[in-house]
């Protein structure tokens, strides 16, 4: 590479120096990246079945230990309901990577606010409910689920629902499916429409 040094002209050197300056001036403006808030992440979902006639609520939750990481979610138990009892089910969604109280911590609020593009669908097995009857509305939007909360277009959302446990002993699974349906939610849009924000399956027992 000696060749370079011997024949380099002043113009060439000038160009090199100029380019070095450009690189320095542009390249040195580096600092540590800013931490992003991650409001979309749901790391914890809690289902609370409160008996309408009073009594202890049944609470189960599913927790994601590592967000986008490879570890599976952990469910802390089965939903144990009492025969013939009517419950109000409230669903609470949290992003525990955000500090409690900060915006983005409660995903429930967001779903509420954007009710017109969200809907929670339910399905269950083992005839665990007296009311509604059937197996839920994931397979068929028209099937019975007793929604309490409605969006701005008077369509169901599903953060609050009512359920009456079977009058006899029963066991099965209970699936909760939250769909994001921007510009897609209609009176008939089913569970196949839109992107999934939440899809959880719990074990359910009625005793």
């Amino acid at each position, binding site marked *: *590479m000696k060749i370079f040094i011997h024949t380099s002209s002043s113009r060439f050197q000038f160009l*090199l120096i100029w380019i070095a300056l450009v690189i320095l001036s542009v390249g040195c403006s580096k600092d540590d990246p800013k931490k992003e808030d991650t409001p979309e992440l749901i790391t914890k979902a809690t289902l609370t079945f409160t008996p309408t006639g009073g009594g202890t609520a049944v609470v189960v939750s599913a927790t994601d230990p590592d967000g986008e*990481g490879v570890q599976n979610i952990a469910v802390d138990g089965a939903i144990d309901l009492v025969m013939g009892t009517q419950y109000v089910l409230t669903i609470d969604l949290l992003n525990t990577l955000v500090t409690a109280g900060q915006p983005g911590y409660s995903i429930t609020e967001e779903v509420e606010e954007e009710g017109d593009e969200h809907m929670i669908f339910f399905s269950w097995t083992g005839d665990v409910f007296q009311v509604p009857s059937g197996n839920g509305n994931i397979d068929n939007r028209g099937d019975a689920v007793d929604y309490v909360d409605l969006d701005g277009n008077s369509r169901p959302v599903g953060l609050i629902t009512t359920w009456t446990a079977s009058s006899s002993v029963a066991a099965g699974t209970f699936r909760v499916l939250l769909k994001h349906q921007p510009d897609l939610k209609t009176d008939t849009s089913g569970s196949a429409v839109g992107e999934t924000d939440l899809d959880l399956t719990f074990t359910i027992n009625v005793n």
Partner: protein
Amino acid sequence: MRFLVSIIVVFHFTLLVKAQQPCTQSVAGRILSASGPLSGADVIITSVSKGSATNDHGDFVIRDLCPGEYVLEVRFVGFETRVITVVVPQSKPVELVMSPESKNLNEVIVQEKLEQVDRSANYAVLSGTQLQETAGKSLGESLKALPGVSTIQAGPGIFKPVIHGVHSQRVLILNHGIRQEGQQWGAEHAPEIDPFIASSIVVVKDAAAIKYGTDALGGVIVVNPAPLPEKAGMGGSVNTILQSNGRSGAVSGMLEGGVKNFEGWGWRVQGTAKRSGDFHARDYSLTNTGIKEFDFSAAAGYHAEKFGADVFFSHFQTELGILRGTAISNLNDLETAMETEPPIGTTNFSYAINHPKQQVAHNLLKINSHWERPGGEWHVQYGYQSNFRKEYDIRRGGLSELPSIDLELRTHTLEAEFETTNAKGQQFCFGLNGMYQDNRNVPGTQRIPFIPNYTAISGGPFAVGKFPIGQWTLDVGTRYDLRSYDVVGFDFSNTLYTANLLFHNVSASAGMSRKFGQKHQVKLNLSSAWRPPHVAELYSLGTHQSAAAIEYGLLLNDSTNRVMDISEVPFKVEQALKAVATYQYTTERIQVEATVYSNTIFNFIYLQPRGVTTNIRGTYPYFRYTQTDALFAGLDAEMDYNLSSRISLTAKVSLLSATDIRHDDYLVFIPSNRFETGFRFSSSSKRFFVQPKVSFVARQFRAPRVITIGEFNDAIENGTDPLGGSSKNFDFMEAPPGYMLAGLAIGYEWLVGQGKFDARLAAENLFNNAYREYTNRLRYYADDIGRNVSFSLKYTF
């Protein structure tokens, strides 16, 4: 349409009137080949844009010339272009014997800096008529016309070029002599180049592009502009293209000239605007596949005998919609999306581009210069590129307006080289390249960045030589490269991590070529190239646009997701050993070129399916970047056969087999075998042509096993491993069946005064077939595009 025609007609007459000059001289002559008169050769006087074609006796006449000196250019397919000077009035007719073309260096020279492809390199060129045929298409789609080149697609607007089965990081793109640096790691990140800036595009299929640094494991794509004018005067062109599918329109204009009284100075400005709405498959609209593109470039330069310098700036900007039906979350969504036809969210045609979409901008500034000194020539080149990529998904919580990925990539490149030739005709070139690159996530995406921030510095010296040895020409080259990364990112728990990495290695190539008589030529090339890993391959984390899969980088721990140090994994840099042999047979009637190749890539990095993971949103398959050894072997062949002076037959074949040789497995998204054949019927003047074409794409039988989503769900329900305990590659869907497409093009060109019009009417997928292409990611969700009729008109002056 009628309006357009009337404009053309009016234009036509205006120019005719303008052409009424008192010049009545003419140039006449005869063009011959070794075996007799050559009919249909183009004879052109570029300075006044007049031309003619030879008749059956090889005779031509160009009329209405003023007295003076003219440069005559004679062109004929398969022959070397000849340039001669004639004085008008003529003392005797021109007589010229043309010699068959040996596809040599001349085609590949870029203005001052010899962007030269070695004589023994195996390459294909897209220029002239062929380039005009692809006008209005993206760079990747244009290159499909070349044997051995195919694409991977993410819908009708996003094409990435694939050379001999490999793409992205393994294909180097040189735009105006500068390594294109964008976010090329993503399979749905197309090259940010407007093909209208090119006068030729060369695809080098050898592995080591010694002069340009690392990464060219598959090959190099060289985008060449025409040389800048050096004499006073002005010229230019306007190109308009209308297409039925997507109801798209594109306009591209170019103006160039020299500067009066400043010999050697030249300039060029160029711009392209393109707008397309939703494309259409045979049976339904492909909702949200529109394109909005706007590009411009400007160049200026000075060229004298011993010194030359150029400045070039280009801006590229595009907005691309991604099929609405691909906006999915987990496995069940994917299953629904695959089963639903027409795709979910399909609506009527619209020009609107909604989420999901990409917005990409790319700027390039280049300054280059050369000096001829005693003993040799110096070249120095500096390039600055800035690349901005925003990807928008459908998001909750009013976040859709925020990009999910927002990246800024700034790259400086600097190159210096010295070229010299000794008395024995041996050529040497020594040089040095350096690159400084900064990748930054623009804050505000409200998501953990998919790839981290990093600074990369790389560079190295090289030496290449060319030696005539008897009948053979030998090309050898070697280089040493170093790349360092300074990485800062956030892991799954949103905790900061940093890393410093250093890679270095040597590349080398050797090639030989030889002509046997006038008809045969053989080229052999053996090259060894390496590639430092891309940061995306090491640290990716998360779900990527339209893929219901989570991707993990090589350095993320299998069970804890912790970012590991590179010393904790058995990582080795990717290295390729590629052997390519080409045979050419060239006569007036037949030109045949056949290339066979074998490319073994050791420590090949790819996304391997590993299993399923559940989070609150449901079940996802996950993929991890892994290393294996892969073998790509195949054959490309092309034949042009002139049945008569007016009818020619073309046939092309590209065959490829790609295997994971470490695990005896197939790789996914490998282009299947394809064949193309066509006729071209020309009028005796060569001004008019009709060109029917048929292409057949075979089904990809060398595809990995299939695990359907139904099987996935059954396994999850039964608590078994859906991958059957095997880390063999898989695909969610069978490879689609093979398909055959017909096309037809009709063209006419005519000279008007100082200018030339080129009109073309073409139909692709003439019979409006419904089909799916294996290498198009859209194949999971929707058919490929249906019939497309396009009309293009080019005016050159």
